[in-house]
C-alpha cells in the first residue's frame, strides 16, 4: 500500500498490554494538510496510538511512517517536526507559563524566544504568562498545552482531546487556529470524544474500535453515505412501509424510529429521502412526516456500538471498556 501524500501512516500496528491487545493491526492513512479526526470509544486504542506515534511506547508489530519516512526507535529526530499534546498537559507547577514553555523549548528542536511570546499571544495567555501554572484553570493549562505542541512550528500536530476544559470561546478559537494551520499545509491529527466538535473541525475522520480501524475517509463522504431517512406513516401501514423501505435498502437497514409510534428509520444515503417518499407513495402509503440527515454521532454509534448488523468488514462491536 502506497503512503505517498500521507503525513502519517500506520500499517498493521499492534500493541499489547500483558495479555490484552490494545491495538490489533491498525492501518491509518492521514493525508497531508488536513484536520484528521481520530475517534473511538474508551479503550479503543486512541491514546495508545498517540503514544506510539510520539515514541513514548513502541509497537509489538507493524510500522509507522511520519511525514513520509519510517519512524522507529532510532528515529526520534523525526519528532522535531511533530508537535503533540498527549493526554493531559504536563508542566512544572511551580514555574510560570512562560518558564514552562522555555523549559520545554530546551528539548527537541531549537525554538526562539520570540516564538514563545508569539504562542502565548496566540493562546491568550500573555497576561497570565508570569503566573505559576499551579494557579491555572484546566482550560488555561490546556491552552498552554496547545502552545507547547506548537512550539517547533510542527508540520504534523497530534492533539489528544484538545478541547478538554476549554470554554466555548476557547473551543472556537482553537478550532479556528487548527483550521488555519491545516490551510497552511500542516496536518492536524485530533483525537476526541466530542463528536460534534470533530464534525465541525475535521476534513477526514478515522474511527477505531477494539484496536482496529473500522472506517476512514473524508467526513462529507462518510456522512453522506451513512445517512438515515426517518419516515412517519399511519400505524396500520408500518409493516407494509417496512417492507418497501427494506426493498430500497436492505431489510436489516430498517428499524423502528426513536421518535415514537409510526416512525421508521432506514439507513440509506441522506440524499435519497425523495426516493423513499416516492416508493411509499407509489404503494399508496403517504408519509405524515419525513426527515433525512446524518450526523457523526449516528455513524460513530453504528460502527462502535451496534449489534454487528452494520456489515462493515473489520468492525468490532461490544468494545471493552477501560482506557489506558
Amino acid at each position, binding site marked *: 500500500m502506497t503512503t505517498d501524500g500521507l503525513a502519517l501512516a500506520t500499517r498493521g500496528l499492534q500493541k499489547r498490554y500483558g495479555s490484552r491487545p490494545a491495538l490489533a493491526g491498525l492501518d491509518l492513512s492521514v493525508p497531508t494538510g488536513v484536520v484528521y479526526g481520530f475517534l473511538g470509544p474508551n479503550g479503543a486504542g486512541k491514546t495508545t496510538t498517540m*503514544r506510539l506515534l*510520539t*515514541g*513514548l*511506547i*513502541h509497537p509489538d508489530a507493524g510500522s509507522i511512517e511520519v511525514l513520509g519516512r519510517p519512524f522507529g526507535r532510532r528515529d*526520534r*529526530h*523525526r*519528532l*522535531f517536526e*511533530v508537535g*503533540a499534546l*498527549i*493526554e*493531559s498537559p*504536563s*508542566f*512544572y*507547577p*511551580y*514555574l510560570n507559563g512562560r*518558564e514552562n514553555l*522555555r*523549559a*520545554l*523549548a*530546551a*528539548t*527537541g*528542536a*531549537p525554538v526562539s524566544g520570540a516564538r514563545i511570546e508569539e504562542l502565548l499571544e496566540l493562546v491568550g495567555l500573555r497576561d497570565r504568562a508570569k503566573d505559576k501554572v499551579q494557579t491555572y484553570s484546566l482550560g488555561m493549562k490546556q491552552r498552554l498545552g496547545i502552545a*507547547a505542541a506548537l*512550539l*517547533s512550528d510542527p508540520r504534523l500536530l497530534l492533539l489528544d482531546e484538545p478541547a478538554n476544559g476549554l470554554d466555548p470561546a476557547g473551543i472556537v478559537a482553537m478550532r479556528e487556529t487548527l483550521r488555519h494551520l491545516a490551510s497552511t499545509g500542516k496536518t492536524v491529527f485530533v483525537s476526541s470524544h466530542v463528536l460534534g466538535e470533530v464534525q465541525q473541525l475535521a476534513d477526514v475522520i478515522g474511527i477505531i474500535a477494539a484496536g482496529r480501524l473500522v472506517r476512514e475517509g473524508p467526513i462529507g463522504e462518510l456522512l453522506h453515505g451513512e445517512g438515515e431517512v426517518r419516515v412517519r406513516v399511519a400505524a396500520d401501514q408500518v409493516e407494509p412501509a417496512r417492507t418497501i423501505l427494506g426493498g430500497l435498502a436492505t431489510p436489516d437497514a430498517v428499524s423502528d424510529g426513536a421518535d415514537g409510534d409510526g416512525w421508521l428509520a432506514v439507513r440509506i444515503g441522506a440524499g435519497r429521502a425523495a426516493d423513499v417518499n416516492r416508493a411509499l407513495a407509489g404503494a399508496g402509503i403517504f408519509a405524515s412526516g419525513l426527515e433525512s440527515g446524518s450526523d457523526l454521532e449516528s455513524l460513530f454509534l453504528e460502527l462502535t456500538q451496534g449489534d454487528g448488523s452494520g456489515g462493515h468488514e473489520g468492525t468490532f462491536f461490544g468494545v471493552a471498556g477501560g482506557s*489506558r
Partner: protein
Amino acid sequence: MRIFVASLRKLVRRPASFVILGILIGLLSLILIAVAATASQPDAPPGQRAGLLLVTFPGAYTSILSFILGLGGLFAVIYGAAIAGSEWSWGTLKSAVARGESRSRYQLLSFAAIALMIGVGVLIAFGAGIVVAVIGANIAGVSTDGLSDAETLGTIPELLGRGWLATVEVGALGFAIATLARSQLAGIGAGIAFFFGEQFATIFLSDVVKYMPFNAANAVVATPGEGGFSDGGGGPVISSLEPNEALVVVVAWLVGSLLVATLFTERAEISG
C-alpha cells in the same frame, strides 16, 4: 547544553531546593548553637564538654563537613528522588520525549544540573556552618584562633570536592530509585528507607555495609576511626573504608546509579 541550563533554571526556581538547604542549615545551626550553649555551662559533665570540639577550629571544619555529608546525604537522596520522580509524576519527561529529545541525554543532563545544585548547596551549607560555629565558639567562650589554620585550610578544597562527590553519589541513588519507581513520592520513600535500612544493617552486616552508598559516602572524608557526627549523630560505630578506597566505591555507586536510571528510562514505556 540547552537542557543543562534549562534544568538548572528549573532547580533554582524549585521550592524543594531551598527547603532542603534551609532545613539542613537550620539543623546544623541548631545543633552547633545548642552544643555550644550547653557544653560551655560550668556544671556540664565532661562528656558534654567534649561537644565543644564541634565549635573549636580547625577541627570544626571537618565536623561541619561530616555533618553535611551525614544528614545532607539523606537530604540529597530525597532531592535526587524528588527531581527524577517528578519528571514522571508530572509528565514532563513524556513531553520532552514526545518532542524528540534523547531520553538518555535528558536524564544525564538533568542529573548534571542536580549535581551542580548539590555542589552549591554543600558550599552554602559549609559556609553557613562555619559562621554558626564561630558564633557558637563565641557563645561558649572558645577561641577561634584555629579558624585561620593554614594547614587545615589547605585541605578544605579537597575535602569539599570529596564531600560534593559523596553527596552527588547519594543524590544519584535517589535519582535512580525514583526513576525505577517512576514516582516522586515512591522515590522519596524508597530513598529514605534505603538510608535508614543501611544504618540499621550496620548492626548485623558491618563488613558489607561499609561498601553501601551512605557509609561509603561518609568514609570519603572521614578520618580513620571517626564515627559519630558523620552519620547524623546517632549511628553505630562501624568499620569504615579508607577514604581513597571509599572514593572508588562512591564513584562506582554514582556511575552505577546513573547507568541504571538511564538504561531504564531508555527502555521504559512512558505513559501517564
